[in-house]
């Protein structure tokens, strides 16, 4: 029954097929594109975490907290135990972020709107304050992260890591998609629309939000871990500062809430937009990025994905 539903679902079909395509294309990509794509996809995974909350009407202005926890979990694991295995690294990132998300969830689940945004910001800045001033945690410099090994094997190229990232991205996308389709997932929208009704239908809004918050933290934490592995470096200003949270929110707005694939497309687009903007106009790339953000808010409130929807819809219509 479940298999049947899954196979009849187009989105899952695309995700699986396009990630397979990407895996093949990845073999022929030059290194810098592979790197950019890895950074983009890892950030996309973090944005997928934000999307989960956004569907409930919550925008976290402090998700760099989990991105940073994931990244630092990988770096600290190596520093203090020497472990560089990809599975252990991922587990560390996932568990660390989930545990923190679970604890903070008890508080944050009671907040909405701007207060949710601000309290998330406060929590992430607490971590930032700790990292910046603590020599044992690398202070402003952070740490280098050595190349990732896979069950004791040290790959020659970045391709295995790339494969891992797209695999995890695909799994997360399918997982989140199935979740959105489930009754529980629809509760997400229901909670955003009307909390009172959800309570009167007999479901705890606080629990629904808490659950989602932990999932979101786990996804973003994993993303941070993958990002650190792809980059080979962690530091507070590029992982935990409020500007990073802002960037993640920016990518979610750029992508739009329409589909689980949108964050990945948006994030990869952002990665290359930034690379080129930075090359062409090193003193004006923030201007380009900020202007894009304003443009999206004004003209494409449902993000880049709405362009995609538009194309798809027209095609359907022509066919039908």
């Amino acid at each position, binding site marked *: 029954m479940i298999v049947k539903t899954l196979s009849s679902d*187009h989105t899952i*079909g*695309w995700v*699986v*097929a*396009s990630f*397979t*395509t*990407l895996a093949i*294309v990845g073999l022929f*990509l*030059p*290194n*810098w*594109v592979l*790197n*950019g*794509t890895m*950074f983009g996809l890892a950030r996309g995974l973090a944005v997928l975490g934000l999307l989960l909350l956004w569907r409930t009407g919550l925008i976290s202005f402090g998700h760099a907290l989990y991105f940073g926890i994931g990244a630092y979990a990988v770096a600290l694991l190596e520093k203090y135990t020497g472990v560089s295995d990809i599975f252990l690294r991922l587990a560390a990132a996932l568990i660390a972020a989930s545990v923190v998300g679970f604890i903070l969830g008890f508080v944050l689940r009671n907040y909405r709107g701007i207060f949710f945004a601000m309290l998330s910001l406060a929590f992430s800045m607490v971590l930032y304050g700790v990292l*910046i*001033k603590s*020599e044992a945690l690398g*202070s*402003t*410099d*952070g740490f*280098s992260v*050595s*190349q990732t090994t896979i069950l004791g094997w040290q790959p020659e190229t970045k391709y295995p890591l790339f494969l891992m990232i797209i695999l995890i991205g695909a799994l997360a996308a399918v997982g989140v998609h199935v979740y959105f389709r489930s009754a529980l997932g629809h509760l997400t929208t229901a909670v955003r629309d009307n909390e009172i009704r959800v309570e009167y239908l007999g479901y705890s809004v606080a629990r629904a939000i808490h659950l989602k918050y932990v999932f979101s933290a786990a996804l973003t934490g994993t993303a941070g871990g993958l990002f650190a592995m792809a*980059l*080979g*470096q*962690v*530091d507070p*200003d*590029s*992982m935990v500062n409020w500007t990073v949270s802002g960037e993640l929110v920016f990518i979610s707005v750029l992508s739009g809430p329409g589909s689980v*694939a949108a964050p*990945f*497309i948006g994030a*990869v*687009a952002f990665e*290359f937009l930034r*690379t*080129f903007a*930075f090359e062409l106009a*090193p*003193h004006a790339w923030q201007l380009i990025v900020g202007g894009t953000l304003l443009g999206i808010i004004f003209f494409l409130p449902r993000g880049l994905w709405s362009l*995609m929807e538009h194309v*798809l819809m027209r095609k359907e219509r022509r066919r039908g």
Partner: protein
Amino acid sequence: MKKGMLHSGLLALALSAFTGASMVAHSAFADDTFKVAVVSFLTGPAAGPFGEPGRHGAELVIDAINEGTMPAPYDSVGFGGVSIEAMFVDESGGNAKQVAEYRNLIEKQGVDAVLGYISSGSCMAIAPVAEELQTLTVMSVCGTPRLFEGNNWQYTFRTQAHAVADSVAAALYIRDQLGDVKDYTGINQNYAWGQDSWKFFDIAMQKLIPGSSGSDSPQFPKIFAGQYGTEISTLLLEDADLVHSSFWDGDIEAFVLQASVRGFFDKKRFISVAGASAVDNLGKRFPEGTVVGTRGEYGILVREQEGELNEWFINAYRERYGVYPLESSYQYAQTVLALKAAMDKAAAESGDTPNKEQIIAAMKGLEFQSLAGNVSLTLGDGHQAVHPIGYGVTAWDDETDGPKLVDIRIYPTHCLLPPVNQMSEEWLEAAMPGADC
């Protein structure tokens, strides 16, 4: 499923749409140029005092060598027969961004070597990536000794002595020139450079001036914090007469401005190990009587020093940029000269345009003449430079209506740095055996 495949194509296309265009745009470079990226702070608080002068220093010397207009021994045209095409890259934005940018430089822009880096944080972050990508990377300014201590990099070099040297030189200068110093404290930035600098200075003081004692609570504000009112108060409240600081970039300038209004420099003796740029940038606002050093024979320290290369550099620099070259101008120029020396040597040995391995082999253990003194790469298995370091006291020169350093003392290499194969901290703790200055 057919439809699924179709859409997947669309999606993959969207994801790699950016690929095609950019791959066409960046094709291979001609054989007779050697592409070099020069990284320094082009924006942010460190751009004015360090990044821009550094960039100018590199630019000036690269152009002169490409044209063959430099004095001997660098008067041959080009680097081992090839000319260098330089691109200048911004160092600001944090370590993670630097690492990403570095990968871009190698894998996208196809540069052959990367020069520069000012912040110790950048250097520590870049070295492992340089190793991974097997790219010749020559550091110019950064000062943390950890770069080569405990690491065995093959592709990374540093044409510049590290923080141990200027800390020891500072302590030597204090012993020799300031006489009876008992207590001292410090204000340093809260990252590798600031923490190391204070630590080494503290140990060196203990060993060189027995009976002196460092503060229990030196200040470590965040880099680029900008406002130091509270920190200045705490320093003023401490009993110590001497204040050590490894502030550089905009922080030293802000600190000096804020502190001098509060009479800080009348009450305390201040020693700045990396703030020489501020002496020029602040002019009359920089207090006289401050002990200032440059990590090497650079900038204001050697402004009056004779020598063909030095005089050429000062004049050419002033002509082109309208100001005196600063410490970082010398440091970046020095890196370019090291590259020139290594590439010439490699070309002479191979009789042809040298390849990467040959250049690296030639640079290992290289000894070369810099603008105002000699440098040799002896530490870190031939990757880490050593050279003399000097300090002086600031004064105003009415003749030139500019700042100058007086009571200059330059200490020789063997007094400043551990011998090969000894870790800096061990050497310091062992009271610097072999340093007979």
